[in-house]
């Protein structure tokens, strides 16, 4: 308990002492939210401890490391393009880099339609006060009981801002590459805001990587606003080292007839917490949340989601699958809420887990809260081992034990990967997952440093 109290006190102290730096270069909207958020953080009792939504998650080992927190942008001493190379080579994207949560100062986003804005969040907060006033922290504040999200609002200074106006369709996917690289253990915050106007369309691929062997704790929050009939195809591939912890929160506000498709693949990382909040505010909205997590050693992956059906005639599908080996621990908690007015809702939620060892653990809690009477909803969770009969079937065709197990596991995971619509990306994820399952990714393989961590 002493550990947590000290950590909480450190945060409030840091906030007080660093407030000048924290506020520097950010707009009033951001800074007002910042002050409210730290108050909320204190009010909630600081880092979640024995709270319902973090009941199986011990955050102390994640937070107790002696991290540095850097409240201003520090230029990297190397060319990021030299130390990082994207593995998805067949996919032509518009890359956007962040380093330790900050917009990378040599990002070039030149070939995009003129009216599209992609820039540093900080810069955007000053340039586009109206957009910030309308959207900033409007969706993340839904999770007002989660102190880690309040912590992000309190400390985040920068990140990626994307604005795609009405009727603009992006041809190429945007690829946000979040890199962590430091000389000492680092805690960092990142905040992103993505706004799609009416009928706008975009594909966003987020890749999380570590480029140095230090311990990291990244608290990253993304807010997404989808205007009427907008469409967003969202992918996130989390590939960090064992010493990295990630709290990744995604808030999506969907208006009438908009569609949000997402696929979050937790490939590697010491600790990953994904929070996903989707609210379906207008009729005809659709949301598809897919995810996969692969764990071994002592990794932990939490997936926490809240899908809020506010308007009628909306559909949501949620399917998360996990493969757990060694002493891996995963938690799944999904809540689908159907509000009284949300008649004709269709909501489906599934979580399936494959345990490959006796010591691996999964806690799963699929939930439905239904306050309307004319809806179609289902939820369920399974936990199982590899089917022995199927193993025998494969072996009886000459496939060896290891290869058979690999095929079964991969087959299990492929169910999720098949939802990836971009073919080069699907193939890449397929091969990354296969490599991962074969134990060939025990480090971030894209990193030139090959730090073996």
């Amino acid at each position, binding site marked *: 308990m002493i550990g947590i109290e000290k950590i909480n006190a450190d945060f409030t102290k840091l906030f007080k002492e660093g407030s000048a730096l924290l506020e520097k270069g950010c707009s009033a909207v951001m800074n007002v939210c910042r002050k409210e958020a730290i108050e909320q953080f204190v009010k909630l009792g600081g880092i979640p401890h024995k709270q319902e939504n973090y009941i199986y998650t011990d955050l102390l080992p994640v937070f107790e490391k002696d991290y540095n927190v850097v409240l201003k942008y520090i230029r990297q001493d190397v060319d990021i393009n030299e130390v990082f190379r994207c593995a998805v080579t067949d996919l032509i994207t518009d890359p956007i880099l962040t380093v330790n949560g900050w917009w990378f100062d040599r990002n070039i986003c030149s070939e995009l339609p003129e009216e599209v804005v992609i820039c540093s969040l900080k810069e955007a907060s000053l340039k586009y006060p109206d957009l910030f006033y309308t959207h900033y922290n409007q969706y993340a504040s839904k999770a007002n009981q989660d102190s880690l999200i309040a912590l992000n609002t309190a400390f985040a200074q920068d990140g990626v801002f994307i604005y795609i106006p009405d009727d603009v369709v992006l041809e190429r996917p945007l690829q946000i590459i979040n890199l962590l690289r430091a000389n000492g253990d680092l805690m960092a915050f990142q905040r992103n805001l993505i706004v799609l106007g009416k009928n706008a369309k975009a594909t966003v691929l987020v890749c999380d990587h570590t480029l140095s062997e230090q311990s990291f704790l990244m608290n990253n929050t993304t807010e997404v606003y989808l205007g009427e009939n907008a469409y967003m195809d969202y992918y996130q591939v989390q590939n960090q080292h064992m010493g990295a912890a990630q709290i990744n929160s995604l808030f999506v506000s969907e208006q009438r007839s908009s569609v949000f498709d997402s696929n979050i693949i937790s490939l590697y990382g010491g600790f990953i917490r994904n929070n996903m909040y989707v609210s379906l505010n207008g009729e005809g909205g659709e949301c598809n949340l897919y995810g996969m997590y692969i764990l071994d050693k002592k990794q932990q992956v939490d997936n926490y989601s809240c899908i809020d059906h506010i308007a009628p005639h909306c559909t949501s599908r949620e399917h998360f699958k996990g493969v757990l080996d060694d002493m891996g621990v995963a938690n799944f908690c999904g809540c689908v809420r159907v509000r009284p007015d949300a008649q004709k809702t269709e909501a489906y939620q599934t979580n399936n887990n494959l345990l490959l060892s006796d010591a691996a653990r999964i806690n799963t809690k699929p939930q439905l809260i239904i306050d309307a009477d004319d809806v179609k909803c289902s939820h369920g969770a399974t936990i199982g081992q590899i089917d022995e009969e199927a193993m025998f079937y494969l072996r*009886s065709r*000459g*496939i060896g034990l290891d*290869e058979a197990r690999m095929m079964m596991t991969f087959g299990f995971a*492929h169910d999720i990967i098949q939802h990836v619509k971009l073919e080069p990306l699907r193939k890449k994820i397929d091969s990354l997952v296969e490599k991962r399952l074969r134990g060939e990714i025990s480090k971030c393989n894209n990193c030139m440093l090959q730090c073996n961590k």
Partner: protein
Amino acid sequence: MLKITNLHASVDGKEILKGINLEIKAGEVHAIMGPNGAGKSTLSSVLAGREKFQVSQGEIEFNGKNLLELSAEDRAREGIFMSFQYPVEIPGVSTVNFLKTAINEIRKYHGQSSYPPGDFLKMIRQKMELVGIDNKLLNRSLNEGFSGGEKKKNEIFQMAVLEPMLAILDETDSGLDIDALRVVANGVNKLKRPENATIVITHYQRLLDYIVPDVVHVLYDGRIVKTAGKELVAELEEKGYDWIKEEVNRA
């Protein structure tokens, strides 16, 4: 090719096979018939290497090797193929990928390099034509959502691709309508070579109208109690198994 001597096998402590003797030579088709619970499926499972069956006594020699010492996958690599009575559905693993893996694992065992990818697809297409299965099956998950007939056809297709020395068809006719039965049987007949052998395990005469056996065995209570030529099939179909049971019980 295959020589089974005094084979005893049990499952969960219960003895099912009580001294099987059987010899099969290259080029032969043997039918094993018998009433329910006689041990027919146990025999095929023991041959294929299913681990839940324990062999307590006896020997199985396959092309000069001690089969009982080999794992299920090594038996397959040595040329044994069992067509499953209930083929397993494997979601997420496409039929074509499965076959490619299987064939390359077998080749690796024999010290051969992987099947050249271009030739592989050509070969696959030929075998599909031979067995008469739909192209679309290839990229679908293995057996997932297949009808009973499709599953059995897929077994024969796998057999065509893997070209085993000894094929064991375990109740391949169960759950098949007459058209599917004919397709499956034709496939088996087309794959017959002087150097390979087939064991057909079945309850009924039906399948044996199409796949004509050289030798027919009747398995009852864990033993082969009668061995004769193909004329035995008709006799069994007419008279059932009771007369054989009586013969055995009298002796």
